[in-house]
Each structure stands twice: as structure tokens, then as C-alpha cells.
């Protein structure tokens, strides 16, 4: 399968470091929570949580895992049902600043569903969006990320896959010309 490395391991680490510092420019994390979107956004959120905690000298940062499956707008149109992932939200977000985190930002529909799902846990003061990869020029809804790891140009049929050390490989981002097996 033809693929191209968009981000290698070294760049990957730099991007996450930069994202963490950008978040710190705007938040002291006394009233801010990270929430990763299932399934892959939680990886980004957990890494940012560790980095931020180090930068803030061990401060504890809350990080939730949110699954937006039940709030998607295409559930009944699909041939097969989507298997839901686990929600791990052990706190409420009333009056908190929330940073939603995902790996690849594409049409904006997952984030729309995520915003909807988030409201079941209270009314946040402010919601921002941090993404590792922004596939720009492919929006279907008027939603834009607040913090961006890297912007890339791609067309609809292409697939962007983020690989993680935790899964046995190395940290990198690949672009495929069609959906990989």
C-alpha cells in the first residue's frame, strides 16, 4: 500500500511539545480539563496530560475520554451499526474550560457529535479544540480547531493514520492514497 510519512518520530515529539506550550499560554489548568475523543483522540489527550503535568511541576490535570458514537448524525444511514467505545468521564464540566482533543480533524462532524455528547456532562464555560493533524479545505461544518499540530492538504479519498508507540510501532503520521486494510 502506497503511503507517505507526513510526520516522523522526531517531529511528532516537537509538535506535541509545542501544543502543550500553546495550551499553557492560555490556560493555567486550575479550571481547565482535557477531554480526548474516542477512539484515537484519547492518545493525544493522555500524552498532552503527561507533558502539561511535567511543565506545571506535577500538577494534576483532569483528562476525560468521551465517545460521541451515540450522537453521530449518520448512525441510521450506515450499513452497519458503529460499535461504541468506552466513556470515561468521572467529572462534570459545569463552568470549566474544556479542551477537546482529537488526532485528525477532517469534516468537523465528529467534533459536532462530541460537542453534543459533552453537554451531557454539564455546561462548560468555554470549549476549545486541539488537534494533531488538520486536514484543511475539507470542512462540512463551520467548526475550526483552536490549536493545530500540523496542517496538511489532502483529498477526500486519502486516509491519514496516526501510529503510536503504545501500539508497538513508533510515533508517526502516514498518508495513504486509499483506505488501508
Amino acid at each position, binding site marked *: 500500500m502506497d503511503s507517505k510519512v507526513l510526520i516522523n518520530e522526531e517531529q511528532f515529539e516537537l509538535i506535541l511539545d509545542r501544543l502543550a506550550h500553546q495550551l499553557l499560554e492560555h490556560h493555567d489548568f486550575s479550571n481547565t480539563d482535557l477531554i480526548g475523543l474516542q477512539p484515537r483522540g484519547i492518545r493525544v489527550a493522555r500524552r498532552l496530560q503527561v507533558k502539561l503535568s511535567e511543565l506545571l511541576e506535577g500538577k494534576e490535570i483532569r483528562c476525560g475520554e468521551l465517545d460521541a458514537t*451515540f*450522537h453521530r448524525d449518520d448512525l*441510521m444511514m*450506515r450499513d*452497519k*451499526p458503529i460499535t461504541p467505545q*468506552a466513556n470515561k468521564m468521572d467529572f462534570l464540566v459545569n463552568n470549566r474550560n474544556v479542551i477537546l482533543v482529537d488526532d485528525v480533524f477532517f469534516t468537523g462532524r465528529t467534533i459536532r457529535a462530541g460537542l453534543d455528547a459533552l453537554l*451531557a*456532562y*454539564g455546561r462548560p464555560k468555554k470549549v476549545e479544540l486541539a488537534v494533531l493533524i488538520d486536514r484543511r479545505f475539507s470542512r462540512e461544518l463551520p467548526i475550526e480547531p483552536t490549536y493545530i499540530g500540523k496542517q496538511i492538504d489532502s483529498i477526500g479519498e486519502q486516509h491519514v493514520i496516526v501510529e503510536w508507540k503504545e501500539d508497538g510501532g513508533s510515533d508517526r503520521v502516514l498518508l495513504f492514497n486509499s483506505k488501508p486494510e
Partner: protein
Amino acid sequence: MSELSIKHLLGIRDMTRDDLELIFKTTSEFKEVLNRPIKKVPSLRDLTVANLFFENSTRTRLSFELAQKRLSADIVNFSASSSSVKKGETLVDTVNNILAMKVDMVVMRHPHPGAPHFLSKKVKTTIINAGDGTHEHPTQAILDTFSLREKLGDDLEGKRIAIVGDIRHSRVAISNILALQLLGATVRVCGPATLIPKHMSDLGVEVSHDLDETLIWADAVNMLRIQLERQGGPNSIAFFPSIREYTIGFGLTQQRLDKLDKQLAILHPGPINRGVEISSEIADGEHSVILDQVENGVASRMAVMYLLARQ
């Protein structure tokens, strides 16, 4: 796997182990939804469900209705006692009339075994069996096995489950036996000989008439309700001499449990006859899973409808 191998939920007999595992996984996620401050998700907001109850039911109907509301589906309710069924309309006509009003899914309870199977061949819609006579009650078996997994661990392989009481009149028993066997558990039925059908062992289950010995054998016990309304009329021969005698032989009491050197998970599909098949102190005790079953009932019915709803 993200798809069920079935198009309708008619009985556990048509299902595979993978189907059950997928439903369990989805049920866990819906259970989390039910414990959120806002317990409603919009997943089935473009679906209309008809609940057709040709036989009385309180908890199953409530549980289905709540599950549908939590999924944002639109619902219409129908009960045979207040309908044209009394005027002689056939089942297929009744259902086709309701479907003509653009209903996408039918949840049906019917006194005749096989009624939902028959209907699934005659009409074009998704059918969920909420109990057909003394045949099957698949969602009850799903919630029972889900509750057992919460208590005994995710793998029921080799676990020993006893189903005690009125097996003869119980759709819960048959669906539970099939579901437990799919999951690899060993099943034993226990009750007076008159309440156990003749060829029970053909299903691959053990048969016992000794509750005390069965309790020693089992890891969990499902106490079925004595269906007093099905024990025959005043002139027929009863299945057991008296309720008191039934309780002495097959009622679960604290004295019986005190004789064991282990803890049993105790299930009951409800409604409970307190003091008959189970004593109050056990029904309300710490090893009783009865109220977990009710909570899991809503979550598992949400999962079933979520997985079967397609346009």
C-alpha cells in the same frame, strides 16, 4: 465485529456467541449513558417503534419504553385489551395497519409461541420478541447473562448456573438455557418433577429435584417465579399440593444459604412472590442481583434496538 448476524430478535436460538458479545459490549456503554446527569442520547431520533403487547406486562413494557425514550425514538403503545383484536382482527392485519402509519420497528409480546417468528415472515419491519407464550424471552436472557457476567466475571465458560422453579411455564428458562450454553456455561434446572418438562435433558442441561444439593453445585442461581396464574383452574390437578409445600422443597431461604460455605449470585426475573420461591431477606440481601437486573434490562434493550435499527 460490529454487526449482528440477525435481522430480528426472535429468540436466542437464532443467535451466535459473537452476537451476544457485541450486545454485551454495547450494553456496557449504554449503562454508562444511564448513569450520566443527562441520560438521553439522540441515536434513534429518526426511528418510530410500536410496542405491541397482546399479553399483560409491566416491567418488560416499562423497560422497553424507557430504553426507547433514552434513545430518543418515537413510540406508540398498543395493548390487546383496548384494541380491535377483540373485534376479530388478525395479527397480520393489526400489524400491517400500524406499519402503514410508517413504523420502523415492532416490539411484541404475544401469548402464542412463535407469533413473532410468523410475523417476521409476513411483514417488512424489524421485530423484537418481548416474550411469546412459554417459548422464548430473549431480552430477559440477555440482561440475565449480562448481570451474571458483572457478578461472576466476563467469561462464563465452565461456570455453573442453576435455574430453579417453574421450568414448564417459563420462557425465561428456555432463553436463559440457550444463552448460557452459547457462552459456555453449564446449566442445571431444578424443581418439582411436575414443573420440569419431560425431555429437558435433550437440551443438554442437568435435571435435579434437590435444591440443597443444587445450591452446593452452583456458582449462581436464577430463581424463577411460580406462575400462580398458570397452575390450572379450580377443577384441574395442581402441579404441587400447596404453596407451603413448594416453599419447603424449593424456596430459597437464609437457612439454606447458611449451610453453604460460599457466596452465590442470586437472580430473579421478577415479579417476586416473596416468601414463596425466595425469602425477603435474600431478595433484599447483598448477594441479590435483582435490582441490577432491572437496570441492566434498560441498558441491554437499548443495545438491542441500537444494533438492529437500520434504514
